[in-house]
């Protein structure tokens, strides 16, 4: 089935939509969830929830890119699961490192309406990413959207781990300056 056919199946409330989504993007979504949670059972659970969330969102939604639509759902669900687990205990895993790295960019201030802030912030980060050289942008996306580890990114682009670490550090610094200028860190 093509993506358009799968979306059409969702619209027709045909359960084959879920089966086809799982068949076509199950591994892809699992990888995203597993990168965040580093736990097979939790990742599988998030992937299953992804199909349900998609089922409830289409209709009325009609995603332009089904694969990335599902990726975003999985990523959100995985983050929520991670947060609920983290309230119990501080776990290890890649996301812990990633969040620590992102924490370098921000002030300690909390309490703003998170969802609204995430939306506005997302638009600003997008503009920032458009201004980056392609490779730098790709490395940033692999790390902070797909939550890949440094060795995984290093392997993906055939670059040394040190190089990846340096690029990420510089990009975080630039992002911090950019967000500061846009008034996010005041």
């Amino acid at each position: 089935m093509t993506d358009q056919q799968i979306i059409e199946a969702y619209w027709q409330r045909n359960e084959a939509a879920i089966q086809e989504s799982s068949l076509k993007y199950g591994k892809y979504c699992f990888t995203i969830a597993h990168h965040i949670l580093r736990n097979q059972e939790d990742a599988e659970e998030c992937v299953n929830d992804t199909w349900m969330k998609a089922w409830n969102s289409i209709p009325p939604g009609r995603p332009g890119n089904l694969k990335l639509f599902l990726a975003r759902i999985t990523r959100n669900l995985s983050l929520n699961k991670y947060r609920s687990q983290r309230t119990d205990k501080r776990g290890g895993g890649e996301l812990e490192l990633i969040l620590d790295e992102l924490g370098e960019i921000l002030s300690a201030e909390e309490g703003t309406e998170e969802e609204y802030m995430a939306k506005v912030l997302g638009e600003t980060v997008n503009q920032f990413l458009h201004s980056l050289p392609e490779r730098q942008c790709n490395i940033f996306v692999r790390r902070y959207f797909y939550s890949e580890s440094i060795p995984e990114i290093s392997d993906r682009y055939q670059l040394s781990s040190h190089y990846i670490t340096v690029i990420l550090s510089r990009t975080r610094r630039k992002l911090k300056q950019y967000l500061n200028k846009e008034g996010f860190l005041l």
Partner: protein
Amino acid sequence: MNQYTLYQSLNAIDDNILIRSESSSRAGRSLPLIKRVSLAACFCLMLAGIFIIPNLLQSTRFETNSFPKSPLETIIETNVIDSDIGNTTHINDENRLDEERVIPPDAVNQLLTWEEAQAFEPWGTYLPTRIPAGYAEESFRWYQDENTCFLSGLWTQYGSYDEISWRISPYREAMADRITSASDTRNYDLSLYPIPRADSVPKELYQIVDHPIFRIEELTMEVVNRRAYTLNDAGDSNGVRMSFCVLYDDVVVDVTTKGVDPEWLYEQLILLQDINNPS
């Protein structure tokens, strides 16, 4: 605002950025095969020398049968072995790509040689015909899935981060916003926008300044020069960088280079017009 908010906000990253990060996977730099073979050969020559020199010193008369393997034989064997290793690596890479879960299972993701890429119908003729000295071929790929398809080539310079990346794809309506006239310099002239460009490029021009598309009829040496810039980034190449697309009828050639002369790039792009539309 906390780090969760920032992490969550990344869900808003544009589709085209996410797709680009997937499709450019492994289009990085690795030691070219020819250099790996050369290094292996040198290493074996050294090893062979260790065995041969004592024999040369001890014996005044060489018995061919009792002689250890000649350096040449060793090199030949080494090359065979190394070729095998090279092939294995290549196959392993392909296996890894197949296993790569971010690539849809029905996607075509085929590694090619330079010759195969040049012969690839109908876009192979849009690859550069020659490459500046010092650059070695790195990888050529034919990729196709539901959302994107392209033929790409990557050449890198050993020991530096200089590279030439070439990507050929069909023109799509979504690209229309990035087409610019050469006379509209604010759409592409990088000298107008100091780094960091996030601060200097107006928001409404981000996309087009980032990656403009020029019709080949409008491409001039001056246009290419306006896209060239250098960057002092410790540890990275300080060569000239350029990045833009050229539209040939319904084919888009997307070039990103580091360390090459703008004049060379201009000549190559004009030459492609002559090759593909000789009239």
